[in-house]
């Protein structure tokens, strides 16, 4: 290794994760589009024929959608950026250490194999039912290994670093690592049923992969939503903030607006986030005080969340011409805006009386998707667009394709969340309505059939988003053989073809 010359970063692990993010992202969103159409037209539950209906119906596919976009698409992108940003802001190259490289490769390949197992197992219906933690114990173990490998990579890169102090993005990656490790362990405490012995002395009874949760009923719910809420926080929020804190200033060439603001937002978020999980259990059988805690901290949470978004928007102060001309920056600016929207929407839905209407309805699904499509999706897309020219040393194939993609996907998100917003409020109010005699005004099915138009609009919105995503993949694919670029073209704004 040349000690004096400029560092040659090695992006091979990053590249693998990018490929995977594109591939699994497309599949996960395709499944999302399928289930969205199934809700509008239930006949599509058998779209591959009656014989395969068991594997193609809504309820089998829904966990496949959520898990593949969360753990396939988003986590892959998180790791792609980790193996890219980590090297650069810590000033270490993966090429400097064979061990680091081995860890990175193992990290990817074990993850890749596990992901295939997850898809298969979900299609077979091997699930524990816990949202976003559906996996049975063998996969839980694999996830633990994958996570430890990532931890080793963080420890390695941070340990070898040449940059004394840690950049903001690194704070967020570390927080992601720690929080998910803790959540994963506690939410997956389960006993494999093959450990039991029957009075007749029979052992290994029944399916080998089946397990029983360590917790029952209300306690189980409490642990699950402590996990669920924070899995959202530490997969859909902190690592995405890590990304935008690197890619926005880097792409725009602007300095971060305020160090102090980033500091306060970070520690504020760390401290407040975990308390808010109770908002998933409002009006349930968990104690009242815990529910109230969830509501109160959700309101407080607006500020540390908005802090990061404001810091990003202010970083672009005076730079409107960049926003106007670069689709890459557009993704990040609109992404921050959607982040603000969903982190205000969430707290509002966490107010007990609002949750009385919103809980169990499509308004929550709307909230989810303006976060994941408008914030997570857009930032991930921007990150991959920024990394590709640097990894492949080629310009992005087409700016106009990118612009078209941006507008198509924006329209998709808007259709998605407005339709779900209206559907949710409609349904929530219809459930509550009493007629003039004091009887329920609607039977349940009345509250289902009114939603048909909204489900259709949502499906159209989702389809548009998927089309945009496919354009993205095509653009990246063509980038690998586009015009070669020199190092100095890569300082800030990414080079793009027409």
């Amino acid at each position, binding site marked *: 290794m040349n000690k004096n010359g400029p560092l040659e970063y090695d992006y091979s692990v990053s590249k693998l994760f990018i490929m995977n993010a594109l591939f699994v992202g497309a599949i996960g969103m395709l499944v999302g589009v399928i289930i969205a159409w199934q809700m509008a037209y239930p006949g599509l539950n058998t779209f591959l024929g009656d014989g395969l209906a068991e594997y193609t119906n809504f309820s089998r596919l829904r966990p496949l959608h959520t898990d593949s976009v969360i753990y396939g698409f988003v986590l892959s992108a998180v790791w792609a950026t980790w193996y890219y940003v980590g090297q*650069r*802001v810590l000033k270490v190259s993966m090429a400097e250490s064979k061990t680091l490289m081995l860890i990175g490769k193992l990290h990817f390949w074990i993850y890749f194999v596990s992901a295939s197992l997850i898809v298969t197992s979900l299609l077979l219906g091997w699930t524990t039912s816990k949202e976003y933690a559906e996996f049975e114990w063998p996969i839980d173990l694999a996830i633990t290994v994958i996570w430890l490998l990532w931890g080793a990579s963080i420890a390695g890169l941070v340990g070898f670093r040449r940059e004394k*102090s840690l*950049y903001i993005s690194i704070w967020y990656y570390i927080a992601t690592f720690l929080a998910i490790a803790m959540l994963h362990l506690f939410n997956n405490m389960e006993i494999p049923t093959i450990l039991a012995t029957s009075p007749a002395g029979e052992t290994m009874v029944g399916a080998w992969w089946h397990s029983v949760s360590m917790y029952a009923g209300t306690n189980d719910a409490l642990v699950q939503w402590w996990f669920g809420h924070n899995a959202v926080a530490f997969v859909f929020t902190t690592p995405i903030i890590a990304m935008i804190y*690197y890619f926005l200033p*880097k792409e725009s060439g*602007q*300095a*971060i*607006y*305020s160090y*102090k*603001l980033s500091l*306060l937002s970070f520690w504020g978020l760390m401290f407040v986030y975990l308390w808010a999980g109770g908002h998933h259990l409002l009006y349930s059988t968990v104690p*009242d*005080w815990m529910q*109230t805690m969830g509501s*109160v901290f959700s309101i*407080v949470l607006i500020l540390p969340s*908005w802090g990061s978004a*404001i810091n990003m*928007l*202010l970083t*672009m*102060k*005076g*730079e*409107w011409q960049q926003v106007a001309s670069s689709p890459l920056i557009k993704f990040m*600016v609109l992404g921050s*805006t959607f982040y*603000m*929207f969903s982190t*205000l929407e969430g707290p*509002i*839905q966490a*107010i007990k*009386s*609002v949750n*009385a*209407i919103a809980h169990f309805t499509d308004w929550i699904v709307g909230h989810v998707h303006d976060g994941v499509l408008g914030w997570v999706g857009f930032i991930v897309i921007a990150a991959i667009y920024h990394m590709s020219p640097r990894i492949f040393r080629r310009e992005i194939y087409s700016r106009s394709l990118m612009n078209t993609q941006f507008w198509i996907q924006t329209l998709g998100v808007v259709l998605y969340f407005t339709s779900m*917003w*209206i559907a949710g*409020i*409609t349904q*929530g*109010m*219809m459930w*509550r*309505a*009493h*007629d003039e*005699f*004091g*009887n*329920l*005004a*609607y*039977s349940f099915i009345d509250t289902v059939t*009114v939603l048909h138009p909204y489900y259709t609009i949502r499906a159209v919105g989702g389809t548009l988003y998927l089309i945009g995503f496919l354009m993205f993949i095509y653009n990246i694919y063509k980038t690998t053989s586009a015009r070669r670029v020199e190092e100095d073209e890569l*300082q800030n704004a990414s080079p793009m073809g027409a």
Partner: protein
Amino acid sequence: MNKIYLWGIIVTGIMLAATGYTLVETAGGKKDLSEVLSGDIVNTLAIAGAVALVIITVFVVIKYVRQMQVDTAGGELTEDSWDDIGEYHNPIPTGWAIIFLVTMVWGMWYFIAGYPVNSYSQIGEYNEDVVAHNAKFEKEYASITGDRLIEMGESVFLAECKVCHGLSADGIDGKAADLNERIGLLTVKNVVINGSNNSLLSEGSSMPGRDGLMNANKDYAPITDAEIDAVSAYVANGMTGEGGDVFAGACASCHGVDGKGMEYVAPNIVTYDMNLLANVLNHGKKGVMGTMPAFDRLSIKQKEAVSAYIISLSKGE
């Protein structure tokens, strides 16, 4: 005016208009927005929240977009730089800092002093709600009768019964009883052959099966297959056609010559009556078509109303 404000107003306007439209369309026949919102504090708060969400986000974002458009970046850079990313020493935005502080203080206060630890429970809130609800409707509808009662019954029917009996109460191709007629052929025949034990009169009353049914006109000979067919058709057709003599011989002793039943002995099998319907709702009913659950969660008034509705369908009494 700047284009961006126009967009903000358009987006806000569309979201709010769509929400308002939805509310009026779906709030149980209420006529306008104020009526929808005045009844239920939960509705009011949810809508207030939704409105605040759109307005706040749109206008805060516009504020920052304006800064992108007209302001210039600046400030003192810190000495650090990572991969050429710098950081300014700029102060924390005051508005943000103040609101953060306020919410923190409010949060602490709420927990220590504001939260009604001892006086609030969601179950307590529910109980009060139920009392208020019942008081309101009992006062208004405790004594309704006639067409109003039938109207009320229809609303119960649509919410509770139509999943099994169908929108038009026709029983969905024999999956449940067709309530537009007192009784179907299949049911009668089944009851005559197998007897019936559904507490239609009261707890414990039952009808014997074919082994226990003798035709008095034929020296009390057990009822034959042909007689079963004939009498079933006779009953199912509303006591017309052949089989009248079998009925007179084997059934009238309990159900009465006209089939209208006898108190404490056998139920009316020509038309529905309040007593029979009350028993079906209280005990459920298991027959050839399937099993109907008991409906103990309906109030007495609701049961009375839905019974009145069913009687009106079959023009019973």
